[in-house]
């Protein structure tokens, strides 16, 4: 062994010039920052603040425009009821989008599972808990199929889920014969299927079990994503799959698990949707997949993966609900509600792009 260690600190000849130069190495640049820079940095560290500010602003504005009706506890709890199913699907969608994927099949797999639950419990007379359990299993299987095609067959998530969206929809029409299962029939044989439609009153507010379930699902996912190793792996895989692999994460396994969990969350949403709609309707929630993506994007989760908080899509879903409710109460035509949500989505993505450009 040589004694190179100590003597080597002299450095190279060409480095002599450095002594006269600025000696600060690897220190933080503390140059003057504009207010805009600070805002960019703050939002980079707290990506959920944008949707939260938008939600509070829109509640304030619509409260002012639409008057007292909007602000009533009943109306605000009604907004939660209205967004509960899209919110649950947005939770599933967030998981997939965090891995830089997309799941176009969430709505179709939810409706398919609700048809399976209804068929088993109502038409075939199986005990309701068993029908629900089988439904959950089918949801997980549907998700695992997506995950398998994405990781093993190595197809882009967009194509895979575009395909399974159609496949699930066709299966749903086949199993249901395009016929709804009526509310009275569910009440007679398996009222448990409609359990999430029941509600509790707190003051003037009326919370359905479905809207409470939505908040619970987000709370559980928040814990899993932020407080467990698996959650960190989901972010790492979405951020840079290769780096995650080299860091020792089994990225394909994580991805399959993400799609399977998303499928399970959709299946839970299916149970809640029977309570929300009051019947099993194979033609319902046709645009739910796109609405869930809208909620996720407005909620500040980056479509490029690895960035954003799971709280965002909950807020995003509520923003959509508040816009729809506020504009309706203000007497605005439905088409302008759609118009507003469209702009909101575009602005949300533009903001995400800007925040990602943050520099030290």
């Amino acid at each position, binding site marked *: 062994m040589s004694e190179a260690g100590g003597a080597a600190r002299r450095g190279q000849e060409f480095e002599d010039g450095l002594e006269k130069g600025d000696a600060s190495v*690897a220190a933080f640049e503390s140059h003057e920052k504009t207010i805009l820079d600070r805002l960019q940095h703050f939002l980079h560290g707290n990506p959920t603040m944008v949707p939260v500010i938008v939600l509070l602003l829109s509640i304030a504005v619509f409260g002012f425009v639409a008057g007292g009706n909007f602000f009533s506890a009943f109306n605000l709890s009604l907004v939660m009821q209205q967004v509960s199913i899209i919110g649950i699907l947005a939770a599933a969608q967030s998981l997939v989008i965090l891995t830089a994927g997309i799941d176009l099949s969430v709505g179709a797999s939810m409706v398919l599972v609700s048809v399976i639950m209804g068929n088993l419990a109502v038409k075939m007379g199986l005990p309701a808990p068993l029908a629900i359990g089988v439904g959950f299993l089918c949801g997980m299987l549907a998700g695992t199929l997506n995950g398998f095609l994405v990781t093993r067959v190595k197809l882009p998530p967009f194509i895979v889920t575009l395909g399974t969206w159609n496949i699930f929809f066709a299966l749903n029409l086949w199993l249901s014969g395009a016929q709804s299962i009526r509310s009275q029939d569910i009440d007679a044989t398996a009222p448990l299927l409609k359990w999430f439609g029941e509600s509790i009153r707190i003051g003037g507010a009326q919370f359905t079990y479905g809207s409470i379930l939505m908040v619970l699902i987000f709370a559980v996912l928040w814990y899993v994503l932020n407080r467990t190793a698996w959650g960190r792996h989901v972010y790492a895989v979405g951020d840079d799959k290769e*780096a995650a692999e080299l860091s020792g994460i089994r990225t394909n396994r994580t991805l399959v698990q993400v799609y399977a969990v998303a499928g399970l969350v959709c299946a839970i949403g299916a149970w809640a949707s029977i309570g929300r709609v009051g019947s099993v309707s194979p033609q319902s929630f046709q645009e739910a997949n796109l609405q869930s993506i809208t909620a996720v994007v407005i909620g500040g989760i980056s479509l490029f993966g690895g960035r954003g908080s799971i709280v965002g899509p909950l807020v995003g879903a509520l923003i959509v609900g508040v816009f729809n409710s506020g504009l309706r109460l203000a007497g605005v035509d439905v088409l302008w509600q759609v118009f507003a949500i469209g702009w909101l989505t575009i602005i949300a993505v533009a903001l995400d792009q800007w925040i990602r450009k943050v520099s030290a």
Partner: protein
Amino acid sequence: MSTEPVLTARGLVKHYGRVVALNQADFDLYPGEILAVIGDNGAGKSTLIKAISGAIHPDEGEIRLDGKPVHFRSPLEAREAGIETVYQTLALSPALSIADNMFLGREMRKPGFMGRWFRSLDREAMERIAREKLSDLGLMTIQNIGQAVETLSGGQRQGVAVARAAAFGSKVIIMDEPTAALGVKESRRVLDLIQDVRSRGMPIVLISHNMPHVFEVADRIHVHRLGRRLCVIDPKDYTMSDAVAFMTGAKEPPAEALAA
């Protein structure tokens, strides 16, 4: 050398189709040294390093760690055996924090009920250890351990990657072109860092094209040519132009270096 090598390879062969990337390559790394691996493009040094770090599986030959034969099927297995690699791409997750990155793939769970049943991460412990490891290497100009890696400069990122390897590598650290993407000042910082790690007794394999850097820090230089080890030279006995001449085949290496 009287001591036993930490890591040896004998007769490694690797074919890619008709291309022979490794042709009976040998390799020796001794305790506490910095061994530089140099070679022309296509000489097979990346393949050699990949074989040692578990990224590829050689067709023939034997790798021994502490005298025991090892067969790595993935980088993860090599890592578990105590061989850490700092990749040229660094393999950091930009949006995650410094602490998250250092513990990526080997997170610590809380003791007791929360960790066992709810798999709760022990963030406090991970942040404390990450801070300790970084300040051990004099990297505490990075104040906020919860800061996203993408907000760090190139040299700081390299520092985090080296600190991660130094914190968890128990036997060997492999560094692939650690100064290639850095400026003069940041390169200096990383070279100092490499020597700090060596001074704790950790042997380092340094792959680099930068001759001044190699000659500054290396204790021995492994010259790779045409898929095999051509010679091992002591940087004190030879000049950079000698090394380049051996590497490119312009000059025959001396007999005693061949025996090393």
